[in-house]
């Protein structure tokens, strides 16, 4: 699995404790620079020699069953698998975080686990909406959610998509505020359709 590494911005969002951030110089920008497919966000070596890497990917290769399991872990209500699959397929951008654990001495038996996801729908020109941001509870509090959203926002801005919206639950409003999102700016609000039976 090829991992193209990009230098992350001197971001205050990624904590620098025992984890090591791998950096290489970035490539020159082209007209429509695609979001790099994979970036290693953190790499940690445990006492027994196991190496755990957290890999960010925007390739959109998400196993729908893994996603369902992750949604269960976070405590979200279940949604039909076919709808999940369709939603992923038709989203403009699907970003994922996977944890890869490599035990020392056992080549080829990597453990790969989906630990985070975020997706955005867009008209590719003006508007985008970020839906379904989730991080595995056991990996929360490490700045991974921030990194995920940050990357999506940056990719959208690079493509000159200026209206980025999301609908945040009350507990996460602060989280998004720290990432540059404003609640109800200039009286703009989201409304939802309610069928009247």
């Amino acid at each position, binding site marked *: 699995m090829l991992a193209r590494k990009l230098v992350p911005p001197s971001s205050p969002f990624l904590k620098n404790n025992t984890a090591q951030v791998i950096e290489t110089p970035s490539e020159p920008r082209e007209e429509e620079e695609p979001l790099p497919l994979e970036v290693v966000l953190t790499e940690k070596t445990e006492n027994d020699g196991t190496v755990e890497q957290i890999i960010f990917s925007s390739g959109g290769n998400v196993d729908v069953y893994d996603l369902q399991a992750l949604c269960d872990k976070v405590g979200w209500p279940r949604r039909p698998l076919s709808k999940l699959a369709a939603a992923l397929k*038709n989203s403009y951008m699907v970003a994922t975080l996977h944890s890869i654990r490599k035990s020392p001495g056992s080549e080829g038996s990597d453990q790969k686990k989906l630990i985070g996801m975020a997706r955005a729908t867009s008209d590719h020109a003006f508007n985008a909406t970020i839906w379904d941001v989730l991080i595995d509870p056991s990996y929360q509090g490490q700045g991974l959610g921030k990194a995920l959203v940050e990357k999506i926002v940056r990719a959208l801005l690079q493509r000159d998509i200026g209206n980025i919206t999301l609908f945040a639950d009350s507990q996460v409003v602060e989280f998004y505020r720290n990432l540059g999102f404003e609640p109800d700016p200039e009286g703009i609000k989201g409304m939802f359709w309610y069928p009247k039976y």
Partner: protein
Amino acid sequence: MDIVAGGSLQQIQQGYPSKYMELRWVTTRRKSGIEKERRALLKKPLKPPALVPVYISRTPSHISPDKLKDLYRASNHSCHRLPNSDDSEGTIRVEPVDIHKLTIALSHSSIVVSVFCKPTDVLLVTESSSSSYSASSLEASKKRTEILGLRDWFQKVVPVTPFNGQLVGFGRAVSDFGLTASIYDIMVIPSLRKMGIGRLIVGRIVRMLASRDIHDISAVCSENERLFFRACGFGDDILGSTTMMYSRKFRPFTKAIK
């Protein structure tokens, strides 16, 4: 052709639900309701409500980006949610929409609805709602409609289509065809507002999404659009979520991008 003469807005909107029946009637009745009171106060003669046929289309190829750009300008509608450009009088004048980006947005919008009206009907409604209307001009316009040549009669009889009509209303939505959809850019030219065209557009979009089993439909709107969407059946989120938008003033990435 579905002919519902006058009646409530509800009746007009339901029409005949076949996908081939794209003609609808909208009325200035509601508009003239307010006008009536005004005229009664000013002791001016009343005009009969105009019943105007419109063609509502779901086919993206019926829209020409140039005509759409004109509609955006006529409606003073901006694609950028936070337009922030004031002219000298203090009214917000939005920047003209980038046609290249508009074409891209159109091609990636899951649903696109456009409404066409005969140019003569647009003039009719515009004239009849202008404030300089008087008894003498009512007579004059009656006379005008009586003297109809064959060409005029023909134009009156031929139904409005996207090819002979003027683009007067538009709306689009982006969806993932699985769970969610977002409605953007609902607009109607100012002279034909308050006739139910906006509701027709939103209703059509919602019906198309519901038929694909998508019921989580969002519409981000400003203060003055809120009443309109409420009338279309939209409300605040029952789950109590907060709408948040990325603020352009927050730019930690600009240095990194360069």
